[in-house]
Structure formats: structure tokens, C-alpha cells
């Protein structure tokens, strides 16, 4: 593995060159406090003594042959990764991702998001592995992008920060909650113990002072203690229940962010069928001697009875089927099904089984 803890000393057996400063050739074997630093300008490794020696008096060029970059002391830091190629790539990635910080929910389709990621990855590759021309092109692109979308980049950065902040807060709240619960439980146990002690003391006192039946007093005292402890248990249960409901939102992680739901239209039981009557219009109110009382009576209205319902129903029944001429309509279908089925049923009726069409076979009741 490349990664080593910052505190742990690198394993000398892996690569002896790792322990020798390429500039002054001092050895960790001779100088156990030897510490290597790098500068992200050129990622050349040197020991802290060299850095102090060369750069304390101001910016100077890199002491590594054929490098010649101008470095400042301020830019030096400890490498996190032993492999400096990795260190460099991580730095580049950090820099790129600060600029290309789009989020998936900004894209309409998954394909768009993936295309964007692909593009960013190509850019990173150019910066890490590409030739000088590739690198220059990539840098140019990065700069262009930064200038073009300054505002959006800033916005996304803010959002990301807030998220991190929220996560941290949540963790803290959880920790606090857990500690509080632990404390409460401990206090609970303590109190219970104290109660039992007190009960025992009381019992002894009572036994000593009163001249009642000893066993009766003991029994009673036991009961009191039991009652107390059970009451306490109930209280704690209630408290924990309310706690649970309050905290339940915090313990679940990885919830998908909620999108504000689209407002649903009111449910239409008739599926959009227009039931407006053609032959009449229902009036606001009708004079009807039967309904005179119902209009004013509290007992009718309190239950939500609506006279409009009654009006609509009566009017509907008055005109429903006025234009249905059974003699014509039934004569047409008469041959088709119904009377035939019915006659068949009649013919079979007293035989023992009724055969209604071919769909249904009914036992004759008797």
C-alpha cells in the first residue's frame, strides 16, 4: 500500500532510497529525526534540513538537477502518500473537482451526468499523464470553465459545505443523545436502588416502632416497593417512546432527498365522465312541504345531510329513462339472449338443475 500514517515511520526494507535525502544524501539511519518534504510545484523530495538551508533566505530554484523551478519555503509540506505520483494526482484531482463541482441532480438524465463525469476524467488524465501540450490545453480549459461558471461553482461549493456541516451536526446530536440516554439509565438504576434501600429502612423502623403483625407489615412494604418500581418503569417507557419518535428521523441514514411532490388533482370517481343532466337543471332550492322542516332542522343538518343530494337524486330519477322505449330496444335484443336464457331457466326449473346460459350452473334449491 502506498498510504502510510503520518506518524508511523516508513518501512526501511521496502526501498532504501526512501530513507536517503536526494539532495544532501543524509541517511535516516544516522539521523532518525529525518523528515522529507515536497513542494507541489515539482514534487521533488528533500529533507527538512535541506529546505531550511536552501529556502530560508527567500525563493530559490529547485536543487534537483534539470528541474530549475523556483520554489518558496512556504510551499513545502509533508507528503501524505509515499508514492509521489499518487500525491500529485490527488492534488490535481482536488484542484479540478473544486472547479468541476456539478451535482448529479443538476442533470436531467443519468446519461448526461455520466458524460460529464467522463469529460472531467479525461481532463484529469491529461493533466496527470499527458504531454506538455495536453497539459497546457487542459489547464486552458480548466481556466475557461472557471471563468464561465464562476457563480454556479460558488453555489455548489456552498451546498457541499452545508451538507458536510449538516452531517457533522447530525453525528454530534446522535452522540449527545446516546450519552444522555446512558446517563438517564444510570440515574434510573441509582434511584431505584436508593428507593429499595429507603423501603427497607422504613420497614425496619415500622417493625421496631409499631406493634402490628410483623408479616403483614413486611408484605405491605414489599408491595409499596414493587408499585414504585413498576410506576417508574412505566414513566421511563413513556419517556423512551417519546424520545424514540423524536429521534427516529435522525437515525436513518442514506435517505434520498425528498422532492416536493406534485400536487395531485382531486380524485374523480367517474373517471372524467360528464354527468351533467340534459333535461333539467337542479335548482338551489325547491319549495316542498315535506322538506320544509328538514331545511331548518338542526338534527338534519348536523349530520351533514345535504338537501342538494336529495334534489339531484329525485330530479335524476324523474328523467332517467324518459327517452328509453323498451318496446323497441328490448325487441332488438330479445332474440339474442335474455328471454331465451330465462325460458331455459324456466324449463329446467323443476327438473332439478337450473342452467342459466352456459356460464352459470345453479343447483335447484330443492
Amino acid at each position, binding site marked *: 500500500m502506498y498510504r502510510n500514517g503520518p506518524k508511523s515511520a516508513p518501512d526501511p526494507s521496502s526501498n532504501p532510497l526512501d530513507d536517503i535525502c536526494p539532495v544532501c544524501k543524509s541517511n535516516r539511519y544516522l539521523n532518525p529525526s529525518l523528515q522529507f518534504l515536497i513542494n507541489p510545484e515539482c514534487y521533488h523530495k528533500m529533507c527538512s534540513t535541506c529546505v531550511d538551508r536552501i529556502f530560508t533566505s527567500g525563493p530559490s530554484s529547485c536543487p534537483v538537477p534539470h528541474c530549475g523551478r523556483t520554489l518558496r519555503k512556504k510551499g513545502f509540506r509533508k507528503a501524505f502518500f509515499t508514492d509521489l505520483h499518487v500525491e500529485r494526482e490527488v492534488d490535481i484531482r482536488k484542484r479540478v473537482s473544486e472547479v468541476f463541482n456539478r451535482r448529479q441532480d443538476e442533470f436531467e438524465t443519468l446519461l448526461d451526468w455520466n458524460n460529464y463525469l467522463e469529460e472531467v476524467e479525461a481532463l484529469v488524465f491529461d493533466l496527470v499523464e499527458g504531454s506538455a501540450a495536453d497539459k497546457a490545453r487542459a489547464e486552458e480549459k480548466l481556466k475557461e470553465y472557471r471563468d464561465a461558471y464562476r457563480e454556479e461553482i460558488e453555489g455548489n461549493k456552498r451546498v457541499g459545505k452545508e451538507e458536510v456541516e449538516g452531517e457533522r451536526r447530525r453525528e454530534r446530536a446522535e452522540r449527545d443523545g446516546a450519552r444522555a440516554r446512558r446517563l438517564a439509565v444510570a440515574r434510573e438504576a441509582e434511584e431505584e436502588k436508593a428507593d429499595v434501600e429507603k423501603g427497607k429502612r422504613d420497614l425496619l423502623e415500622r417493625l421496631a416502632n409499631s406493634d402490628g403483625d410483623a408479616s403483614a407489615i413486611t408484605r405491605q412494604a414489599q408491595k409499596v416497593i414493587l408499585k414504585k418500581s413498576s410506576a417508574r418503569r412505566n414513566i421511563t417507557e413513556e419517556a423512551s417512546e417519546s424520545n424514540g419518535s423524536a429521534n427516529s428521523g435522525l437515525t436513518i441514514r442514506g435517505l434520498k432527498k425528498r422532492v416536493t411532490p406534485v400536487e395531485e388533482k382531486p380524485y374523480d370517481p367517474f*373517471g*372524467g*365522465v*360528464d*354527468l*351533467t*343532466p*340534459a*333535461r*333539467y337543471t337542479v*335548482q338551489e332550492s*325547491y*319549495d*316542498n312541504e*315535506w322538506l320544509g322542516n328538514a331545511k331548518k332542522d338542526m338534527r338534519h343538518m348536523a349530520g351533514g345531510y345535504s338537501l342538494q343530494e336529495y*334534489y339531484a*337524486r*329525485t*330530479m*335524476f*330519477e*324523474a*328523467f*332517467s*329513462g*324518459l*327517452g*328509453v*322505449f*323498451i*318496446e323497441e*330496444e*328490448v*325487441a332488438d335484443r*330479445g332474440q339474442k339472449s*335474455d*328471454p331465451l336464457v*330465462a*325460458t331455459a*331457466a*324456466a*324449463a329446467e*326449473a*323443476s*327438473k332439478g338443475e*337450473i342452467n*342459466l346460459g352456459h356460464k352459470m350452473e*345453479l343447483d335447484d*334449491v*330443492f
Partner: protein
Amino acid sequence: MAPSSVSEDERYRTSTQYRLWSFTPASLLELRTTTNRSAANRVRDAVRRVREARAASSGNTSEADGGNESRAVSAVPEGEVDCLSVEEELKLVTHFCRQTLQLGDHLQVPTDVKATAVQYIKRFYITNSCMTYDPKTLLKTALFFATKTENHYFRLTKFAEAITATKPEEILASEFLLTQGLRFTFDVRHPFRALEGAVMELQAMANGHIPVGDKLRGMDRRVKEAHGKAREYLKTSALLTDVYFHYTPSQIMMASLLIADRQLISLYLSSKLPPGSGSANAAISAKLMEALDRCAAMLQSMEPGKEQSSEEKKELSALAKKLRKCRNPEKIDLVSLQRAKREGDGEDEKVVKKRKLERERSAKEGEDVFGPTIPK
């Protein structure tokens, strides 16, 4: 879905009353004739069977038969069976419908319940015959069943107590039979509420709340009178005649109003279907008036206030006597038949078992890839 308009008529066409229980006079008569003929045949067959059984049993042993058998045997008359004709059956059914109304009055049930019960009886006896199932017991069942479908709770024991010589089992025995005869359609569309609607609107027109010319203005009193008279027709004539089978509730209601006050209703209908606006409307209104006139004539064939004349009564009692002689002896004791059915005696058990086996087999075959074998 695009909003589509559904007219009142379309909505009526979805009802079972329209789909299953509307007939032309000819088809209704045909149905009744067929029913009557097959029932008569079956009565003759049953009588012959019972006689053979009696001959056999009297040949073998003395008369020590079980209850059901001996009762059936005792009910069998001597000689050739004289069956009822279609007209006679119809008269009897109408008579028993009348009795249902009286029974309903006696039990003080609402008009809706009575009307529904009567329609149940009428519907039941289209495909069943009086000779097979006795209307006298069936009418109680119908009335009791109507209290349930019309949401008017009536305790069964109380119901049976209120009628002389009736046991609860007797009422329940033919309940499933009745529902089967009704083809499990319990919805009956009555013209009563429709009448309230029409009268309400007429009144609003008379008082000027709904603007329609001046012709209907101030006819308040006439509307009220027409309302009362029409209601009488709907309560009796409409129930006892066959109008429910041939016309829609709205038409029945309009026809009864037409009898009550022809001028008023003509004005009303012409305001609903203005004659000037297109020939289609005119054609419909002419057709409607014709239908209403026929319906009205049918209603008037049975005037509401009129009692049965003594001649009719005599005829009816003769018919009742005749019915007693041509009852199907196998279907007289419905209570014990129902009990036997429920307990399932030997032969029935065999049938039930066979049927169960068949069902299981077809279910098993149904799971086959190519489905069950096609029945021949």
C-alpha cells in the same frame, strides 16, 4: 380520458331492471306461456310418479310411510290433473300481489318495501309457476326479503308472529329460491321518488322560480292535486299491472301524472322537449306521448280505489281451489325439502360427491398446460 357525456337515459340502461327485467308484451307472454307449459308437464309427471309410488307401497306393505312421503301422497288428487292456464295463473299472481299489499299495510311497512315485494313476486312468477311454488307462502318471503333490500329492518320472529299461522322457517325456506328466481338482482327502480322530483320542479315552475313562459304560472293548486292522484296510481295500479316490465319508472310516473292532469303535464313535457327546436325533438316527443298514452291506458285498466267485485272474488276462489288440485306434489313441503337439502340425505349426498369430484378434476385439469379437456 376525455370527458364523455352520459345522459340520464344511458345511466338507466345500466340498471338490471332495464337489462334483465324489461320485456315487450309479446316476449313476456311467450315467457309466461313457456313457463306454464313446462310446469304443467312437470306437475303431471310428478303426480304420476307419486301415484306409482303409492301403488307400489300399498302393494308391498300397509301404509306406514315416513312423514314427507305420506303428506305428498295425501295431496295427490284422483283422476286427470287439470292444470291452470296462463291467464288463470296471471290472475292468481295479481290477486296475491294485492294480498301482499294488504299484508304490508297490516305490518305497517313503507310503500317502498311493499312495492319492491310485489315486483319480486311478479318477477319470480315469470319464470316460475304458481303450480310449482305456492304464491301464498312465497309472498311472505318476498315481503320479508324486501324489508331487507329496502333497508327497513324487521325482525324475523316478529315478522312471523304478526302473520297468522306462520313460522319463521317457513319464511326462510323459500328465500334462496326467491333470490334465484330473481336472478340475484334485487334492485327495483320505483317511480315514487321520480314523482317527487317532477312535482318539485312543476311547483318551482308554477311559482316562477324556474322561468318557463306564463302558461304554468299559478298552477300551484293543480300541481298538488295531480301529485296526490298520481301517487295513488303509482301505489296500486303501477304495481299490480305489468307496467314495470314495459316502461321505465320515469315514463310510468309521467303517465300517472298524465292521467291526473293531462293539460298540465302536456304543457310540462312540451317545455322539456320544445316542439319548435328541430324535427328530432318533435319525433321523440310524439313517440313519448304515444308511449305514455299506452302506459296510462295500462294503468287505468286497474283503477286504484276499486275493490274486487263479487264476481271476481268468486272466480278467484274457484281458481284457488283449482290451484290446490294441480299443485306439484313434490314441491309442497318446502320446509322439509330445505331441511333435507341442508342435511343432505343419501341420494343427494351421492350427487354432491359426484359434483365435488367433477369440480376437483376440472380444477386439476385446469392446471394442465393445455387446460382441461373440452366437455362434449
